[in-house]
């Protein structure tokens, strides 16, 4: 029987969990015996093929920051991002693949081949970022059988390990991203209601605020800069993180600053820290309110708040939530691990659904009562040119067909009409985004739909989108008069068109990751 694995590919830390014989997820420690692996990479200077991932990479940053990379997740899906090492441009997909390779490699030592995995992503990740995450898994030699939203994974773990019932809010404040998800839980039945997320709100932003305080203190005392090099910055970034952790336990954190103009002792109080992160916390509060509004409820409609992610240890986070909801949020034994554990459960559910023969009876039995109804993470639409009622002019706009947060599986249709007499084709575009304005939505597929010529304007074209539980989307464009049909399938990890350039890039990714020795 194959190993069933869930991976939390985090901004600051990554973890791997595996389903045991009775379908319970367990975190697998890395080669250093640690349950969490820092999502950091260091390219060895002496041995160019050697890539160090994890705590060793963190420590090596102080010596040569130029050859180290962190917080890659923030750049997933960004085609402009790359890290140049020894004249090779490493993309975010390749760098993430190195981390996944390390997790896979360390787990394989004890548990044999690791192949079928589910990787977690923030709920607000769009298709581009989800695809990039999947590509990273493939480049690491994994068979990515699914992508799960981090708060969904966390809720899966919570719901299967403790008594959770009613309308639940999962508050996932991780190292680099923030998600809030509202779901209905009844026993092992979980129905997602809605999700909201912020791609650049997490622990590293709080660390940055502390770092700014340290730099300011030093500047005020010595009239000079504390940080003179990338290595200094790496060191003080970690010092800032350490202060943040201390302030979650104590009221004051003390540190020595060793700068070029002299040394000094600083004291950062919890009050100072909370004032510094106030604006960031406001952003989190707004998203909570937005999610509540999307769900059509006020705070009293939430029965339980579940905390996920290391940054939820900050007392201010818990205080604000308690003030808003009127009861304290619930914390897991380890908020850092529940996403990976839930991702393993999700992988088990996917395997039971897709390849039941590959799942042991013990695991199948352990998962048999769990039922999850997920939702569309984004709205999907098409581009059309309706008449603007106010001006009487035609305007090009995005028309949403499948709405965000529609429970899966789902299907929706809308009717459109040809614009001109003799129109022989329609450019059909599948969009992802919540806006009417076309500039603000992402075009995920574009095709030409050939129509019979010599027809009048206003011929009806029915557009139907459907989305299944495996996150496969099917788009059907139907010319009702002629019966002609154009169908576009958009599975996760595929955008409906694979160019030679895509294939070449994928081969290069595989080669670069495959060639690198990860330690």
């Amino acid at each position, binding site marked *: 029987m194959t190993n069933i694995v869930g991976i939390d590919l985090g901004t600051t830390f990554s973890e791997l969990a595996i389903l045991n014989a009775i379908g319970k997820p367990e975190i697998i420690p890395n080669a250093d015996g640690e349950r969490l692996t820092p999502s950091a990479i260091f390219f060895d200077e002496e041995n160019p093929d050697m890539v160090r991932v994890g705590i060793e990479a963190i420590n090596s940053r102080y010596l040569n920051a130029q050859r180290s990379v962190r917080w890659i997740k923030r750049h997933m*899906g960004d085609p402009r991002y790359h890290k140049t090492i020894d004249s090779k441009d490493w993309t975010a997909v390749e760098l993430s693949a190195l981390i996944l390779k390390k997790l896979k490699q360390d787990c394989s030592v004890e548990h044999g081949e690791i192949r079928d995995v589910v990787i977690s992503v923030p709920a607000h990740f769009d298709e581009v970022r989800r695809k990039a995450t999947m590509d990273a898994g493939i480049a690491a030699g994994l068979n990515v059988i699914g992508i799960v939203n981090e708060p969904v994974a966390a809720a899966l773990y919570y719901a299967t390990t403790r008594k959770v019932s009613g309308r639940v809010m999962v508050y996932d404040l991780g190292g680099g991203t923030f998600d809030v998800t509202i779901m209905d839980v009844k026993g092992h039945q979980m129905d997602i209601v809605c999700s*909201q997320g912020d791609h650049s709100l997490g622990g590293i932003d709080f660390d940055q605020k502390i770092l700014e305080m340290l730099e300011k203190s030093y500047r005020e005392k010595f009239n000079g800069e504390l940080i003179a090099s990338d290595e200094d910055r790496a060191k003080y970034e970690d010092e800032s993180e350490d202060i943040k952790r201390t302030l979650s336990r104590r009221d004051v954190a003390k540190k020595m600053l060793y700068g070029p103009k002299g040394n000094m002792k600083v004291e950062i109080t919890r009050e100072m820290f909370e004032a510094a992160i106030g*604006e960031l916390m406001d952003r989190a509060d*707004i998203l909570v309110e*937005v999610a509540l509004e999307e769900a059509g409820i006020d705070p009293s409609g939430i029965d339980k708040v579940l905390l996920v992610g290391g940054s939820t240890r900050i007392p201010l986070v818990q205080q604000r939530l308690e003030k808003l909801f009127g009861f304290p949020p619930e914390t897991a034994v380890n908020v850092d691990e529940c996403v990976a554990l839930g991702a393993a459960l999700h992988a088990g559910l996917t395997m039971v659904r897709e390849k039941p023969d590959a799942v042991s009876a013990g695991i199948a039995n352990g998962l048999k009562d769990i039922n999850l109804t997920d939702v569309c993470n984004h709205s999907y639409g098409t581009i059309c040119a309706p008449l603007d009622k*106010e*001006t009487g002019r035609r305007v090009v706009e995005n028309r949403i067909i499948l709405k965000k947060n529609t429970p899966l599986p789902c299907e929706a249709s809308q009717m459109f009409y040809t614009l001109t007499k003799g129109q022989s084709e329609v450019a059909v575009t599948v969009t992802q985004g919540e806006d009417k304005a076309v*500039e603000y939505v*992402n075009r995920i597929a574009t095709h030409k739909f050939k129509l019979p010529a010599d027809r009048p304007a206003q011929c009806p074209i029915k557009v139907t989108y459907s989305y299944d539980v495996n996150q496969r989307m099917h788009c059907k464009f139907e010319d009702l008069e002629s019966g002609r049909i154009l169908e576009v399938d958009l599975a996760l990890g595929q955008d409906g068109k694979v160019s030679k350039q895509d294939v070449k890039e994928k081969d290069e990714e595989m080669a670069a990751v495959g060639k690198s020795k990860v330690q």
Partner: protein
Amino acid sequence: MRMDKLLVSILVLLAASAAVTFSGLIDRYQFARFVNHIERIGLRYLLKLRGLVRRFKSSGAFGRTRTGIAANAQSGPGTDSSSPVDIRILNCRVRLTKQKDQDRVVDVFNVDICGSIHTSITACQAALKVSVLDVTDEFPMAVQTQVRQGTGAGGPVLSPFYHKADLGKLPHQVTILSDWTSVAQLRLDKLLFPRRGGRTLQFDTSVLSAETGQELALARCRFVYENPDFGFMDLQENSERTKVLAVALAFAVSAADGDLHDWEIDLIKNWARDNILDSPEEASDQDIPRLDKALNKTIAFFRAGNRLDGCGICRELLGIAPIAQRYDILELCLYVARASGTVAAEELAILKDLATWLEVDPERFRVMMQKVLPIDMHQVKDIQTVLGITLDMDKEKVRRHLNKEYSKWNSRVTNSDPAIQGQADQMLRLIAEARSQYTSEQRVSPQDTKAPVR
């Protein structure tokens, strides 16, 4: 010709504005009368009229005169509806009635005929043709109908209106209709008159041989109709005037910060060339220099520190420009404000004023502004304008509004365009800032923060 008109209208505009600005130097009332005189009967009007007449003549839009009537056709004298009837010839009259069209009622001209129709043969297959000529002004013009909808260069396309119908076989060589017989209903919503107001319309009702097209009888009558809508000549003039005023407002925005930047001037000049000249490619050798001369005079006017009465111009635009054109003007002004790379507080203020004066939807203006002038261009962050916080909002409304804005920009933060990503990031920060400013316990109300936050 159009250049003369433009030059004059810009000069008139500047003169009018100068009068407003320097009201102490010239008696405002007398000056306004002078400007009005020039505008109404002076050079500009005459040039315009001559041009339009020439245009319509060349398009064959003018109606025929009596000399065009076939010799063998019987024709009645030009009559009013109330003229006495001569049964020996064909007579016509027109009544304004109403007609039901599905779920609505439309006004129609009901055309009646009576009298005699003479043919050379019996059982002649006959057809009816009604055309309408507007004879109010010195030069009669055919009433038009729209043959293609559309805006901009592609349309709409107008064509002289006529109504044609089969009359069946005339039983005798002389057919006499002793009573008024209704033969045509002409829907008013299909007719386009040259101008608004009282119009004297001449209806030519002819009976034709369906086989040869020969005119067998022609009756002519007149009807005075009060047209409530702009005529096609009004629209043409309004459109041209609108463009001139648009240029003036664009310069006003450019000059708002005390300096007309070269990029802004280039943008306005290019817009003027593209929109005011019939076709920049077909413009004559003199057209562009003359336009440039007019524009340069305008630039000099602003560089001399003069200012326009923007409110007055917008008031005029409200009367002549449909909402779509007002959006076009605002868009031009937004792009002018953007041309220098940053938007000064004064430019933002005038843009807000223009939006109010032009009576465009404030929310739509805000969306336009967000697209054309991303927040990083704003020298001063006017939170209320940028985020659409209005004075009537209480704390709860502000909170809900900001949540909506946050949700909107948060979904844009993963856009594939880095510029939009950057803008979304900045907007999210601004919203968080506004939230703490307006909805915290020691909040400031929108009324208290009319001044932009620097």
